[in-house]
């Protein structure tokens, strides 16, 4: 395309230019005699012809210069480093338009501009076949922004109420300082601050860093509290791939001094240095109520890397697969899902070493597995951490449950091998007002299994044992989605009765033991092998 005097604006419908000025002059003359409607029709026809030409023909063009306007605080080098690599490879008009879209998205992603406008202008007349790119940014007038909402975060175990403050572009390098305070329903609290690191020109993908102080209270479930002071580095973040590095100082304590033997052994200070890779594909039509499509997530975590070889050494792998099939009536959909995970320590004497307790898999809670892709954690119908292996808490006189609302006297210690599966049928309710509000019903079946593999337990692991470890639940409910969260005010669920095996020498003790155990198991839905002597 020859250089022209007209601008092509990315965000505007361009009224192209013809090589033939005479045609325009003729038009001008003719337009005097044409009706307004005919004039519009003619122009539209010309426009369509031009667009057809531009979209079908390879119109060579190269970028001569990138002009940046509107940046009073933001460093020019930051904007150039974002857009230059994108426009460098554009050699045709179509590629130029696409590159402009990509560059626009890249700059908006920095989240430090109120608006970004990219205009394609003709290059200098002495250089035909060139174009200038004009990037006009409007910096955020108020660098401070606040947020309050209910979220779910990778660090939190469930939903949390979070307030955050963001300070944008303090130093002009696209830095985003944010501080947040989060309180979770399970008494999780987190204070964190993050920023993207200055962009290195050699690396097209920006790095981001986040420092956080996380405090989680698991006293009621597992008799320990955990504090994590961590630094997370985002190394790569694209639509499908995510690589991050986490370095954290983790401290587990038991202020109640009621923990079981397994938990007691794990209390103390640890350094967690891990590389995490996540691959995600989500083709579902809606993350909250999917009715068609599939999703797959694989997360691999390798701990025990530098800087210190005494840091926690573990390998953790999680897989999630979801599939939604529309049924064609009442917006009904059948959702299937399966999730699995395994954690294992590595290094010398790995077979004797237990896996790190806070990183084990815990199951239960009210988070629906339909929309959550956080590994094998969600099994509806069981309370938080209510499934899987458990150990007796410390015995203290006659009152062994001081200060604990969980009267079972058991610590849930999680498992090394986890598997969950579910099937969920969701459909709109007959009432129109409920349908319009998004209220819908669902029927579900869930199952899950947690097993221990470490400390040589894998030697005794068998398929029969694996089968016996499954717990199931089924139920139905009504879901009320709101802008902030998803609520299920009505849910009925049915739990499978676990099988229990008891060994005892004395029959009377066996009977008493069995009765106590049955009522305990009925209450908590745990599987336990006890010996009465």
């Amino acid at each position, binding site marked *: 395309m020859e250089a022209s005097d007209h601008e092509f604006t990315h965000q505007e419908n361009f009224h192209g230019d013809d090589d033939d000025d005479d045609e325009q002059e003729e038009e001008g003359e003719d337009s005097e005699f044409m009706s307004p409607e005919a004039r519009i029709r003619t122009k539209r026809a010309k426009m369509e012809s031009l667009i057809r030409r531009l979209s079908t023909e390879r119109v060579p063009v190269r970028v001569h210069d990138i002009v940046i306007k509107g940046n009073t605080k933001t460093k020019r080098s930051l904007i150039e480093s974002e857009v230059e*690599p994108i426009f460098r490879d554009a050699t045709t008009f179509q590629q130029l338009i696409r*590159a402009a*879209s990509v560059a626009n998205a890249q700059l908006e992603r920095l989240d430090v501009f109120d608006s970004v406008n990219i205009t394609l202008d003709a290059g200098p007349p002495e250089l035909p076949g060139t174009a200038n790119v004009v990037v006009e940014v409007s910096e955020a007038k108020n660098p401070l922004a606040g947020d309050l909402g209910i979220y779910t975060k990778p660090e939190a175990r469930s939903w949390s109420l979070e307030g955050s403050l963001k300070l944008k572009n303090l130093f002009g390098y696209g830095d985003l300082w944010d501080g947040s305070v989060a309180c979770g329903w399970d008494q999780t609290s987190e204070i964190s601050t993050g920023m993207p690191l200055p962009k290195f020109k050699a*690396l097209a993908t920006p790095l981001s860093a986040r420092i956080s102080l996380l405090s989680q209270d698991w006293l009621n479930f597992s008799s320990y509290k955990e504090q994590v002071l961590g630094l997370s580095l985002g190394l790569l973040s*694209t639509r499908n791939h995510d690589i991050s590095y986490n370095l954290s100082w983790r401290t587990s304590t038991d202020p109640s001094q009621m923990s079981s*033997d397994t938990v007691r*052994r794990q209390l103390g200070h640890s350094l967690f240095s891990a590389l995490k890779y996540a691959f995600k594909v989500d083709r579902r039509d809606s993350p909250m109520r999917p009715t068609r499509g599939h999703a797959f997530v694989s997360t691999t975590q390798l701990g025990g*890397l*530098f800087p210190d070889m005494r840091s926690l050494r573990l390998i953790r792998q999680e897989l999630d697969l979801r599939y939604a099939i529309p049924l064609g009536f009442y917006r009904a959909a059948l959702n299937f899902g399966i999730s699995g995970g395994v954690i294992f320590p590595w290094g010398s004497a790995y077979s004797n070493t237990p896996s790190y307790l806070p990183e084990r898999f815990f199951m239960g809670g009210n988070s629906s597995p339909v929309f959550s892709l956080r590994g094998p954690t969600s099994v509806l119908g069981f309370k938080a951490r209510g499934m899987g292996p458990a150990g007796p808490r410390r015995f203290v006189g006659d009152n062994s449950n001081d200060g604990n609302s969980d009267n079972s006297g058991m610590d849930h210690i999680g498992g090394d091998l986890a598997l969950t599966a579910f099937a969920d049928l969701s459909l709109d309710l007959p009432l129109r007002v409920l349908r319009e509000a998004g209220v819908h019903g669902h029927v579900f079946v869930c199952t899950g299994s947690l097993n221990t593999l470490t400390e040589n337990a894998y030697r005794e692991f068998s398929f029969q044992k694996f089968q016996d470890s499954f717990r199931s639940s089924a139920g139905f409910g009504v879901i009320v989605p709101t802008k902030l969260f998803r609520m299920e005010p009505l849910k009925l669920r049915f739990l499978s009765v676990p099988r229990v095996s008891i060994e005892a020498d004395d029959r009377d003790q066996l009977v008493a033991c069995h009765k*106590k155990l049955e009522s305990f198991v009925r209450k908590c839905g745990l599987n336990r092998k006890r010996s009465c002597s």
Partner: protein
Amino acid sequence: MEDGRGERERLTLVARKPCFGLPTSCPKCLPVYIYLKFSKIPFSLEFNLIRPDSDQLPFVESGDYVAYNNEKGGTIQKLKEDGIVDLDSEASGIPEWVSMKAMVESWLAEAVMYELWVGSDHKSADKIYYSDLPWPIGKILYFKQVHSVKQLLGITSDNAERREEEIYGRAAQAYGALSSWLGEQSFFFENRPTSLDAAFLGHVLFTLHALPETSVLRSKLLSHANLVNYAENLKMEYVDANSSSSSVPQTDPSSSASRRGSKPKSKPKREKTEEEKKFRRRAKYFLATQLVAVLVFLSLLGGSNDADVELGDSDDGLDYE
């Protein structure tokens, strides 16, 4: 259902790591170890290497029963009150016994605390508490502990010298009194061991073996030959003896370092350290190479990253499909 009090399973003492030729090198853990040895009850010894700042250690457990050190006057007192081990049934009513016990557990305990965290260099403390923790954590916890000890002992920059004189003075006074009372006896009271012997023996063994030779407290103790002889004799009889009914040291499976036996041999440890250093050096080179490879991969991948960038909704109304 299992009753934690019903049947006492084998006792396990969870203490801090062995060092300096001692079965456990922590000055709070050693008396409990010695007390159990005096009682001749079989017990296992396990080590916890990742809780240097916990006041729950040492603790004794048996099944669901646990006797923490921060409850009811300490682990020994809790074992006595719960009827598990009581060596003081007759001596606890004797005023002199009570006074000497109080002296050992206050003046001498303070002196050891001062000498370990303030008076000497940090090498002993590092070795006992932090050698198995990753470096940044160990360093931060060490400084935190030093600050905490200074607060506990009431030491400020203004009164540091005065407090040091007071602490050493009281320790010297205690040594003198105990030396006079002990004479040439094997134990402090009625020729049989009590918790006073356990506490004082633990103190003496720690001072003689774990503190550096330049330690002022150590030199004050060495001036009382009968106390040193008392300690060495009891160490030979109760601590160094490898009877089958006594403790079987085990590693805490949650710890990252493994220790076997109550007396680590110096020669194999030196070899292992050199091997370990070599391994760590190679591991660091390997990991550095991997990091460089990842960075190079990211740089190359970044060039083709544009295709993965999601485009927002386009407002230009153009359709090139």
